[in-house]
């Protein structure tokens, strides 16, 4: 097991990102969708904060609002001490460079008629950075950082593989010298072998450039590998927050437990015969949120009260916040030390 000290959780400094009781809605009256509904968390400088949940749970919307790309309908967002929504347009342009988002589909970021080098130079041009020669030099340096050769930089997007395009996309963000990167499903479309390479790259970049990440993915293995802490989202709300390996090995919320259980793993035949929780049904319609605990329509542990009373989010152990009526009982299961046995991996 990795010794995963969150240097940040100990530091007392100002968080890089802090989100308080944030709500993001789309549409109005009968078509109103609360994609994010009262979410709070902080991300310390240098921390990797993972966000996991099924599709439609509001991860992308949360990520976009956290960098100021979408305006929340309630609550607040702070970038350090700055309120990004209170900035003038000019201030915002400069500020945006520090807080960026990298999306799942790298194709959307590239103009098919521009070479990779031109595409990586473009954001610096828009931001008014340096002269052409300087921009070119910096773009080449960043392409080198993400392990793309100068030969690749002369190519057009359609001549690159998915993984190479995603690398170029990252170089495009890095040239602006960001502090915080929201990575939204950045490895979802890649083969495992390429995905591993990209995850190593993200880790190296974080160290070399002292970056802070919000790492969004629906893949539990990916999130728990890369993150210091994770938040589990369901239907616009955070169900559980805690250190990555804690949430993975000792989930305190029935939804995290079910996600963990659904994730297939490479295991010898005997280990496969474990009891699995198979969640029935799908995430409910966004237009019609369930009463009480939002998860009650699918929760294996739900009792009558869950349909009427919404559980409060509580801190059950230092840094572990859970919103479930039975979180204390879930915690009690792990009470004797060393309850979280580690599955043996193959090889």
């Amino acid at each position, binding site marked *: 097991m990795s010794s995963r000290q969150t240097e940040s959780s100990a530091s007392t400094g100002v968080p890089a990102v802090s989100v308080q009781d944030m709500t993001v809605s789309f549409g109005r009256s009968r078509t109103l969708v609360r994609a994010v509904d009262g979410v709070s968390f902080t991300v310390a400088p240098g921390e990797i904060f993972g966000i996991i949940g099924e599709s439609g749970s509001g991860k992308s919307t949360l990520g976009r609002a956290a960098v100021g790309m979408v305006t929340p309908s309630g609550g607040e967002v702070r970038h350090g001490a700055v309120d990004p929504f209170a900035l003038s347009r000019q201030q915002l342009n400069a500020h945006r460079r520090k807080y960026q988002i990298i999306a799942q589909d790298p194709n959307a970021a590239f103009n098919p008629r521009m070479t990779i080098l031109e595409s990586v130079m473009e954001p610096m041009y828009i931001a008014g950075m340096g002269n052409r020669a300087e921009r070119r030099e910096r773009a080449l340096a960043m392409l080198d950082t993400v392990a793309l050769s100068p030969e690749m930089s002369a190519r057009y997007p359609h001549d690159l593989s998915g993984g190479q395009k995603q690398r170029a996309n990252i170089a495009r963000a890095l040239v602006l010298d960001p502090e915080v990167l929201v990575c939204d499903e950045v490895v979802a479309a890649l083969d495992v072998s390429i995905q591993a*390479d990209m995850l190593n790259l993200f880790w190296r970049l974080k160290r070399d450039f002292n970056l802070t990440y919000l790492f969004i993915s629906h893949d539990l293995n990916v999130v728990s590998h890369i993150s210091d802490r994770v938040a589990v989202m369901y239907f616009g709300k955070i169900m559980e927050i805690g250190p990555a390996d804690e949430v993975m090995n000792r989930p305190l919320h029935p939804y995290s437990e079910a*996600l963990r259980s659904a994730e297939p793993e490479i295991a010898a035949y005997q280990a496969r015969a474990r009891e699995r929780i*198979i969640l029935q049904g799908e995430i409910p319609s966004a237009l019609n949120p369930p009463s009480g605990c939002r998860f009650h329509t699918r929760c294996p542990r739900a009792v009558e009260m869950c349909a009427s009373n919404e559980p409060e989010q509580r801190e059950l152990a230092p840094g572990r916040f859970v919103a479930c009526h039975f979180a204390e009982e879930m915690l009690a299961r792990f009470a004797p030390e060393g309850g979280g046995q580690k599955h043996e991996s193959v090889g």
Partner: protein
Amino acid sequence: MSATEAMPARAEAPADQAALLSVEDLKLDLRDEQGWVRVLDGVSFDIKPRETLGVVGESGCGKSMTALSVMQLQSPRYSRLDGRINFQGRDLLKLSRRQMSRIRGRNISMIFQEPMSALDPVFTVGAQIRETVQCHFDVSKREADERAIEALDSVGIAAPREIAKLYPMSLSGGMRQRVMIAMALVCEPDLLIADEPTTALDVTIQSQIMDLLLNLSQKRGTAIMFITHNLALVSQNCDRMITMYGGQIIEGGPVDDVLSKPLHPYTKGLVHSVPDAGRERGTLNAIPGRVPSLRAMPPGCRFEPRCPHATTICAREVGIEDIGNRQIRCHRWQDLTSITGGAQ
């Protein structure tokens, strides 16, 4: 509503039974703007009755093309198939189009990653399943409708009569996948080819669908060819597996053996690149480089440009070797297993 269920136990590894499907030395050429190109080069494998065979490999290695070749779904103008595809004692490549279309959907059926590519947006799902039934059985419309409803019911759709009246567009991804499974299984085929049936779905829905597929196939004795790039899914659901690379099979064998002691450097690379919470960050194993394009395949071992163990011998062509119940295509597998003890 939820249930806690044990994993469906897999069928006992079938003994030395005659193969249901036996593909021998399959070669596929496809024609694009630049002319003909060899996409599959000497693919051979067997599937026994009731068996689940996993097919893994990086994007573009030929998994889907292998499946489409068995179904003969490529356009003959743009494709050339060579070799033998023996199914229940007949070589499918020697059948007429009409004979083949009788087998398709009846004896062998297929489900796809993107259900919308197989479902027709202008017909209700009920009508589409009925159509499949009437295509293969001489039954009345009413009878076919009943079978369609039963099929929807069997894939865990709660209100089958209502869902049957809906168009595919109004269903969620998970529901569409269920409908496609219902359609694929309604004629009780002997072989089901499932091409990445859960790749586009969330893990929660993925586990519902896999559970459903395995339970149904086990109940009916359907063999499955399960294509995926997710090794963990193979580990949990298949009896045997094959790994493909650059249009060839490079390794094959019982799932537990291959995953715990992969013999081919590429399979090893795949197994070790799966991200894992217990692994120090920045140290995941990645396979450097990328698959060469089909027109620029190296003349010897196709994995040579990316292989950490390549030596001069690897520039020579390498055939697939049978060793007991496993197959391997690598000049150096013996050296490599003796150096590393196999597992690492």
